């Protein structure tokens, strides 16, 4: 059964602004479920979902699991690993085996860009991309957008700067596409060695100095700096990174207005973000985590064929 999003959620580049709005709107009524004493509705009762994680993940996997459990789906976690080549072989065989077990949905996290699409093209089940290589991480960007919308009551016209390692970030790509489709202005700021060479052709503003980005933006989405980037020779040291690109309260205090602070986690305190910013009054980092469950419930619901206008009623058990 194909819903308003199509069979799969592979990325935000291929979605329309209308479809993104639909997911965010559908997430609204699902927020409330997590606030109840008994956090469970029967919406996806009888659905079988596999969480197929080829890369270690705590936050995203747990968030998907809670979303599934709170919707009463039957979920199984599969943690797979292997060498670069065996990953690919495993993927084909895993896809066929899963299909043979008559499942309804797969949530996949994989280290290779395009892996979610690869799987989606080979099985009939719905596929949700929970992060593929350096390509996309659509539910992360959706929860970022929901958090921004909660605060600003709109996305159109907002100025969002994505800070840090854009080159290797699937979160950055999904946010760039999603925010632009929703009418926001997107900028990036980071060392040129951690931005794609073709960034100037991707419809975003590029700031060389974090101070300029802070002057311009309404919100910063601060990416995690993977420690292996330093070993890979992209930057000379974490110390210098913090001094040149780190977001500190000292820098934020010079902004003309208060900036909303987002971070997809996990944070390197004292590297890309200082603790007083992460824990400060304008940080919505934990709101992001809370919204993650609601957004993932919305995605699960819509892909399973749920009617968006019935999301409120669906919480009681009908609507599929």
């Amino acid at each position, binding site marked *: 059964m194909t819903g308003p999003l199509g069979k799969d959620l592979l990325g935000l580049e291929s979605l329309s602004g209308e479809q993104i709005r639909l997911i965010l709107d559908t997430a609204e009524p699902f927020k409330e479920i997590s606030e109840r004493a008994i956090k469970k509705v029967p919406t996806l009762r009888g659905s079988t979902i596999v969480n197929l994680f080829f890369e270690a993940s705590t936050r995203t996997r747990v968030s998907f699991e809670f979303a599934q459990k709170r919707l009463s789906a039957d979920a199984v976690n599969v943690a797979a690993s292997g060498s670069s080549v065996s990953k690919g072989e495993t993927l084909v065989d895993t896809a066929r085996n899963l299909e043979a077990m008559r499942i309804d949905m797969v949530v996949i996290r994989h280290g290779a*860009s*395009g892996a979610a699409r690869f799987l989606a093209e080979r099985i009939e089940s719905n596929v949700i991309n929970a992060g593929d290589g*350096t390509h996309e991480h659509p539910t992360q960007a959706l929860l970022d957008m929901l958090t921004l919308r909660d605060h600003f009551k709109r996305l159109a016209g907002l100025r969002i700067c994505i800070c840090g390692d854009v080159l290797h970030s699937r979160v950055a790509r999904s946010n760039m596409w999603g925010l632009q489709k929703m009418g926001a202005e997107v900028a990036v700021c980071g060392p040129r060695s951690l931005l*794609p*060479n073709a960034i100037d052709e991707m419809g975003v503003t590029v700031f060389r100095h974090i101070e300029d980005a802070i002057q311009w933006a309404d919100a910063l989405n601060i990416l995690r700096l993977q420690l292996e980037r330093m070993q890979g020779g992209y930057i000379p040291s974490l110390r210098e990174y913090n001094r040149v690109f780190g977001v500190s309260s000292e820098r934020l205090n010079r902004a003309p207005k208060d900036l909303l602070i987002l971070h997809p986690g996990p944070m390197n305190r004292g590297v890309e973000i200082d603790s007083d910013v992460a824990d400060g009054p304008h940080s919505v980092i934990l709101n992001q985590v809370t919204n993650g469950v609601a957004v993932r419930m919305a995605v699960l619901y819509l892909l399973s064929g749920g009617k968006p206008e019935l999301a409120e009623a669906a919480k009681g058990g009908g609507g599929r």
Partner: protein
Amino acid sequence: MTTNALLLRGGRLVDPSQGLDEVGDLLITDGVVEAIGRVGEVRRDGNALETIDVAGRVVSPGFIDVHCHLREPGREEVETIATGARAAAAGGFTAVCAMPNTDPVTDNQAAVGFIISQAKRAGGSKVYPIGAISIGQLGETLAEFGEMIGAGAVAVSDDGKPVVSAQLMRTALEYARTFGIPVADHCEEPTLAMGGAMNEGVMSARLGLRGIPAEAEEIMAIRDILLARRTGGHIHLCHMSTKGSVELIRWGKERGINVTAEVCPHHLSLTEESVEGYNTNAKMNPPLRTAADVAALQDAVKDGTIDVIATDHAPHHYDEKERAFADAPNGIVGLETALSVNLTWLVHRGTLDVPTLVEKMACAPARIFKLPGGSLRRGAPADVTVFDAEVAWTVDPARFRSKGRNTPYAGMTLRGRVDCTLVDGRVVYRRGD
């Protein structure tokens, strides 16, 4: 059954080696070209004379592919010398040069001899081995060029393993000069290209795939050209893919440096857009580039900056390409689509005429690699390709003679295809057989 005499009647005889482009007959006797002439001029003078009507077809010197991978020894499940030589024949190639990235590496006279002996039994196109530059393609110790040439090698190359050491490349050029053979190099600066899966640009940024910048090729191309200038050796640059490389080759040729270059049909026809959807059959190294690169390469073929078109035929097993993009191997099959792709994108779109295409696929390869063939002159070996330059057909990889099915042209309708291929006067391929 061997045919002592064979008449190809009424074809369009195209042979740039002697400035020939006219309708006529071609008479082959005992494996060599006996006579060419206008229709009817050549009379049948013996009872055993067999005739093939080739009216409306182009009759050209057999194509020669100076760059292919036949996978034997080592990966016989993917291709063998026999299947490769038959695929070559089906693509109109009367000779192919086999790269040394076999297992074990073709880096000694015995390995060269093995390929020659397998090729003799194959019954397809001729196969000329290319020996490795360094032992084991490791880029350390020079292989025995002289011994390998003695056994039948026609060139040396470390193929997909770029010769990183400039000093080793210098020595190879000097040493190869002794024997008058080209040194063929896969130009790739390894630290820039490391981990790359496609062309570096907007497309790679969008898809989240690590890119290979054009400069990875160009830096090595100019290094090789400069070393050829220093040594006087013959550098042959494999599968050039960028506009910048074209400019560097032009620079070298203008200065009289002994540099020749090849380009592949896929780099003359497709762009990085083919990778969309993580299509592993559009993954090769060097990668598909941009429309500006394709245009520059087409112009370079036309103006002579690029000398030959070679396939870089690289069969892979279906399972190997059935992977996430970054994990899939590089390479596509090319022998059975090369002519059609070149006709479709170069001739029918007005960039090249048929004689120039024949020059790039038959005459120039023979000249540059000093191989027999590449001509329909009287007395030349009767290595002949007969093709229909117009007919439209749809590529169905299941019908390939190659074991490889990995092609980005699957399902595409191309124009022009091979009807008949003759090696030493013997029909090695005839469409419909």
